């Protein structure tokens, strides 16, 4: 366990240059983009002098490296600046939106695993038979269906129809409730967007699991287990499945980072006040402190989910050892 702790600390130290790089890229991108935030804030009719005055107040007239140093210094203290549009601290804005995005991400992950695990295993065990073909076609559909379209269809077919025909109003057409506020309403409100977002991931994971199981059932140790009379159920679900899931964890973990980054489209379709929606609004408003903050957050989410995957992998696969002399 000590090895794992050391490894985590090492990986966290490595995250510093990664985040530094991400912050630099975010900063440069925003500042090289056309458009002047000061002009935007004051409107078309403001005089050049007013704009210059505001630029000075915001520090926009200073050289880029000075601005970047200032941004970095504040960011280390958890201060990502203020939104140009709403004047609220960026940190507050992000923290306020994050729970919605996390709820959506976790629910999507649950939905995708609930679909992918059984179909992936079944597809591999019945390779070449009807079950396999059906699950593969469904997976193909899942991958190729745009999720905004699936989202709209779900709203129209499920939420609207249930409400207008049967008077069942469990699925909201717009917005999302947090489970921390109202567990039942929260779960119902996240179901449709989670399904829309989770389907593509489910298709991906299903294929990974199917391939993993197919790889593993041809390994020698499966023949050994069979030669020693171990039951087929134990071979499949204990011996094979654990080994087959290992490579899948990597894929799922990386997707987790992407989900936290916020699904811009699904949040827009379902009117969920999450990170994705904040990102869209900020980009349209050229609210660059907020954009910078979100890019940093997404980078951090990727670093964190990578670390999480590596640690989990090591706990499941005894062949992997952290650090130490024999690494």
């Amino acid at each position, binding site marked *: 366990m000590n090895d794992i702790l050391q490894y985590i600390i090492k990986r966290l130290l490595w995250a510093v240059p990664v985040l530094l790089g991400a912050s630099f890229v975010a900063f440069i991108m925003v500042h090289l983009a056309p458009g002047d935030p000061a002009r935007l804030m004051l409107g078309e009719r403001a005089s050049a002098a007013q704009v210059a005055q505001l630029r000075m107040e915001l520090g926009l007239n200073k050289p880029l490296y000075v601005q970047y140093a200032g941004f970095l210094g504040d960011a280390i203290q958890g201060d990502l600046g203020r939104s140009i549009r709403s004047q609220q601290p960026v940190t507050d804005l992000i923290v306020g939106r994050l729970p919605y995005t996390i709820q959506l991400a976790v629910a999507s992950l649950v939905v995708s695993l609930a679909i992918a695990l059984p179909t992936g295993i079944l597809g591999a065990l019945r390779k070449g038979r009807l079950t396999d073909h059906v699950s593969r076609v469904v997976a193909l559909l899942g991958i190729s269906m745009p999720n905004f379209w699936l989202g709209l269809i779900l709203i129209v077919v499920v939420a609207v129809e249930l409400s207008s025909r049967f008077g069942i109003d469990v699925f909201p057409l717009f917005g999302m409730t947090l489970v921390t506020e109202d567990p039942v309403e929260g779960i119902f409100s996240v179901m449709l967007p989670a399904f829309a977002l989770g389907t593509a991931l489910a298709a991906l994971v299903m294929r990974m699991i199917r391939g993993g199981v197919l790889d593993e059932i041809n390994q020698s*140790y499966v023949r050994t287990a069979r030669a020693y009379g171990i039951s087929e159920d134990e071979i499949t679900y204990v011996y094979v499945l654990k080994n087959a899931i290992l490579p899948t964890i990597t894929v799922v973990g990386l997707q987790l980072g992407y989900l936290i980054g916020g699904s811009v489209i699904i949040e827009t379709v379902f009117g969920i006040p999450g990170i994705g929606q904040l990102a869209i609004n900020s980009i349209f408003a050229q609210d660059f402190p907020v954009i910078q903050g979100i890019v940093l957050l997404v980078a951090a989410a990727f670093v964190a989910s990578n670390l999480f995957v590596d640690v989990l992998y090591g706990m499941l696969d005894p062949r992997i050892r952290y650090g130490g002399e024999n690494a």
Partner: protein
Amino acid sequence: MSVLNVENLHTYFETDRGQVRAVDGVDLEIGDGEIVGLVGESGSGKSVTALSVLGLVDAPGRVVEGSIEYDGRDLQSLSDAELGALRGSDISMVFQDPMTAFNPTQTVGRQLHDVLRTHESGPVHPLVRLFGFDHSKEYKKRVIDALERVGIPSPEERYDDYPHEFSGGMLQRAMIAMSVLCEPSLVLADEPTTALDVTIERQILSLFRNLVDDLGTSVLWITHDISVVAALCDRVVVMYAGKVMEEGPVESVLSDPQHPYTKGLLQSVPRYDEPDRELYVMEGSVPNPIDVPSQCRFADRCPEAHERCFEAHPRLYPTEDGRAACYLAEESLAMEEKL
């Protein structure tokens, strides 16, 4: 009394390029407490013969003909569950490469525990196994005893080690411990020393010899190394291209082989007491197992082949104290009858 009696076994593989006759009419008998060596080149059908006995031939392979009798029971008529109960408990198997034969993500002790538990208290639901509720101290103790018996040092600690933490030799010892865990009456050993160093090989051979003497287990020892047969076995069966070429007691087959193939095999083994002798090289190569001709399988490479050999593959003719699938054996048999 024989433990295993295989008669006229045919195991074919249906492939895209045609039917592969991996085992093509093999007879094999293993007596009580006997160690039988099954010798042959790669692809001669040795392993498939052993796998056929346990019903472990993977698709597209299939036993198409023949009978396999174990302890008077016809193994092919058994249900999957009955066969499962037999595997690892009455008949067990030792595989060639211990590094891949064990599951890499389960401890070695746990894998042996699973075998013991399966045969003593039956299979469990995967969830029960996943959470380890089936683990018993008594089984663990017996597994540790078994590991100790095969000469694994500090077995209590090794119980919780994973396969990659073992050396190849130690892991093969663990596999042997697993094979005798339920005191089977027959062990099928499929080239168990091929992946190991020569020094380790000797240790494993003497370990096996001792176990067999203690438990009275019969063994089918599959190898391509005829010197191992000389050191370990009572009887030897020589296979070539899916057919049995010769069989008999080890001393007589090795000192006075009747079949030209066995002769060639023996002459191609280097010997330190005859350093000047040139090694014999068998001309040609193993025939294509797809669309085999009806002639003697060895005829194309045989230095003593004559007209008859190209007509049909000979059946096994009795020799002095064994059998050989060669017309030369038939001729000497006929000569003896005349005398």
